[in-house]
């Protein structure tokens, strides 16, 4: 972890591990503060951080939106959001401490007056709350507004701090919809903010389990020797959702699941699973290794045989009747957008050559689950009869990212009894059992990291661009060839996906 220069503080000591990392004096500005994300995730995360004593005294929150609100109205909105969604119990004194720092700036993004007001609000907070000119701008707005907002910030001198104070920009996915648009977006943001001051939120990376991939791989000795082509048969990375597109028709149609999920979440999980050991645990070393893994990714030659996309149709999902994608409100009935995508990738390096990585994601699948399954090769020789081992599958190590976070190892064990019969059993480590209730929400961790300036858990622009470079040829191929195959809502995706693995002599795990 990169620690800011605190060496001269006599009260800090590396030995003293009880003292938490508290962010320095700072504030947060949220654009699009009326949105869902802001109410359900950001505001509760700010409160939870304050409740855990991790925010600096005087931390301030500025909301910016097109509403005719006073500070008090804003405060009430945050209050309701916190009461409803916060993870930790509501405490009046924490709330009081926080609420003193709430400000609201009404206005449109093109409105110069509003940004002038924002600037004076920031200056006022520096004076009354001691935020020290350090502000993070959270752009919780659709990407088409990014250029306007960052240009406005620049024009009003908000994008650069005075002296050694900092200004940071936080942006949410989507980071473009192909390589060209991603580069354009990066250019727009980097014109105003330095690349190291731009934090791209991929909330998956804030999850404890994802961080645990690194601990599992690099803090233990028993897994790493097996973590290569000599022992691993293939890797499956799954992110399944049981929900449909909900109210996101406008965003989703034309984007599809591959761009929405594979490009960022799944390729990040792939990079963390496949990368070599970083030289250290700081942002730069991590990016270097992740980039190396991503640049080594090779697409299959025949995209038609090794990629599949699907679209859900009317069906029953978990006991409720749900409509098909084309029947969803606001969707073009002729839409070719994929709600399911499965692709096969290979990583061309010494560790992974010849080991396929199967990535799949979809909406309205059997249940909500995200997991990484490393499936090992069969034992090269078995002293047992084939009848004894009939029910023995391949060993597997499964990292469950959500829900029910944990790690499962599957291996063969003798069934008690007189005959020799070997069957798969699982050994399970559940976060919920060993570290109950202490897991902070992903957004808590990520917001705190933004304020601390710790970029470990944020994808850098090179990674984003590299991911598009992987996905773009697939999207182009899909555009030109055929249309998504239909699958019934509530099942595990189209038949073609099963056939795609069957061709390689493998099958999907049922997560």
């Amino acid at each position: 972890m990169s620690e800011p220069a605190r060496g001269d503080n006599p009260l800090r000591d590396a030995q003293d591990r009880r003292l938490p990392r508290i962010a320095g004096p700072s504030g947060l500005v949220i654009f699009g503060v009326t949105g869902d994300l802001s109410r359900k995730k950001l505001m509760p995360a700010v409160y939870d951080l304050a409740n855990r004593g991790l925010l600096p005294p005087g931390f301030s929150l500025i909301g910016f939106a097109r509403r005719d609100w006073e500070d008090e109205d804003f405060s009430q909105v945050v209050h309701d959001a916190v009461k409803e969604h916060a993870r930790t119990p509501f405490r009046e004194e924490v709330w009081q401490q926080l609420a003193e720092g709430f400000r609201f700036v009404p206005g449109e993004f093109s409105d110069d007056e509003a940004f002038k007001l924002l600037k004076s609000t920031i200056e006022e907070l520096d004076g009354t709350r001691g935020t020290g000119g350090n502000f993070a701008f959270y752009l919780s707005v659709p990407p088409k507004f990014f250029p306007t907002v960052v240009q406005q910030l620049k024009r009003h001198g908000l994008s650069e701090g005075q002296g050694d104070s900092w200004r940071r920009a936080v942006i949410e996915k989507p980071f473009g919809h192909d390589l060209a648009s991603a580069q354009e977006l990066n250019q727009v943001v980097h014109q105003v903010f330095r690349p190291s001051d731009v934090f791209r939120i991929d909330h998956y990376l804030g999850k404890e389990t994802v961080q645990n991939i690194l601990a599992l791989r690099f803090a233990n000795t028993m897994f790493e020797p097996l973590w290569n082509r000599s022992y691993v048969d293939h890797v499956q990375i799954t992110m399944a959702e049981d929900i449909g597109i909900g109210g996101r028709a406008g965003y989703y149609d034309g984007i599809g699941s591959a761009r929405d999920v594979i490009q960022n979440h799944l390729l990040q999980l792939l990079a963390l699973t496949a990368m070599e050991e970083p030289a250290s645990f700081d942002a730069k070393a991590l990016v270097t290794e992740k980039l190396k893994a991503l640049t080594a990714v090779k697409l299959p030659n025949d995209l038609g045989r090794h990629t599949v996309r699907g679209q859900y149709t009317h069906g029953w999902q978990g006991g409720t009747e749900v409509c098909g994608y084309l029947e969803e409100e606001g969707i073009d009935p002729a839409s070719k957008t994929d709600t399911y995508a499965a692709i096969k990738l290979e990583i061309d390096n010494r560790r992974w050559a010849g080991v396929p990585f199967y990535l799949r994601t979809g909406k309205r699948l059997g249940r909500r689950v995200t997991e990484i399954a490393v499936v090992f090769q069969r034992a090269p020789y078995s002293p047992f009869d084939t009848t004894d081992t009939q029910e023995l599958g391949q060993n597997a190590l499964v990292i469950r990212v959500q829900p029910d976070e944990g790690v499962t190892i599957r291996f063969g064990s003798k069934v008690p009894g007189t005959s020799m019969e070997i069957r798969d059993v699982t050994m399970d480590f559940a976060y919920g059992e060993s570290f109950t209730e202490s897991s902070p929400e992903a957004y808590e961790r990520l917001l705190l990291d933004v304020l601390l300036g710790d970029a470990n858990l944020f994808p850098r622009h090179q990674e984003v661009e590299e991911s598009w470079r992987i996905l773009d040829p697939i999207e182009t191929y899909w555009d030109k060839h055929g249309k998504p195959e239909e699958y019934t809502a509530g099942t595990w995706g189209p038949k073609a996906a099963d056939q795609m693995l069957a061709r390689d002599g493998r099958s999907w795990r049922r997560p």
Partner: protein
Amino acid sequence: MNIDLTDTTSSRINSALVQARRATGTPAVGMVLTLVIVTDEGNHYDALKAASEASKEHPSRTLVVIRRPGRSPRDRKIARLDAEVRVGGDSGTGETVLLRLHGELSSHAHSVVLPLLLPDAPVVVWWPEDAPDHPGDDLLGQLAARRITDAQATEDPVATLGLRADTYTPGDTDLAWTRITPWRSVLAAALDQKHATVTSASVEGEAYNPSSELLGLWLAERLGVPVERQVSEGPGLTAVRLETADGTICLDRADGSLAELAMPGQPDRHVALHRRETSELIAEELRRLDPDETYASAVKYGVARLGSKAPAARTKAPATGGKAPAAGNKAKADSVRIDQAGTAAPAAGTEPAPDGNSGADGGSGGGSGKKKSAPQAVKRAASK
């Protein structure tokens, strides 16, 4: 489910635990540690309640050792073990065993506890009150990676701190220390924001509140400045003041929940600093099981040296004021080294103590008295 066992043995308790686990349908549990609570009939309820609450964060096997030595000589001669096994339900996420040790058995608790420890998992012993004088030497304490005492629960908390310092063994820790973590983190954050040299400090809190002393010890040890202990009405700690050249950094908590942080050149701000429940303290203790070296150096600093000017080894530090503040860093490094040497060669360490005491006495009369004693200490240490 609950299983009551009368006149039993550890192995029967073990099979009852397995039986209870099977019956509740959770044969595999991810318990991370064994928590042994040593207490008596009157206090076990509260302690167990706190532990169950904490076990939500750290699933554990909780062994409650309740000693019942008996009053009459006949009672004292018998030795009987009664146990109550609780799994699932109200007992938190782990398993709880109440062990009642009658008669002579009450002085052989370790023989009952040893077979019941979880394999390969760390052991924590907690004495909610009446801790042994030397926890690290105690037969139960020896089983543990971490020994938790509570100076607050003793009759003379300040004297207890001295005892804890004398008998400190790596792995010891005290709830009076745990209670001040939020204070310490806010104070550290305050100095993160303002890199000023602190010249003196004061800690204000209730009488008989060892946390106030510990916070003072920590400040004195880290900053190398005299720390004054002031008594207030409470509740608990009420204020900490750090004097710097620019003015006073003051963290003031009058009502036990919301504190005010005042820093020179900066607006006053509110900080939530509520007094925490025992369960939260235990949960914090269980989070890290390695020796708490910061606690060790704070408690070893010695309450007697508190109000005094920095002792001989430290008077070279910038604390003395006018003298060459530029040499501050070097002096501090020196003082640390000397401090370590001090434990090996008592002569260097004990020498300034008498001076320190007189300084403290003078200090209660007025700040100026203290200032004079310091240079004297320098001279005497130098002449040695």
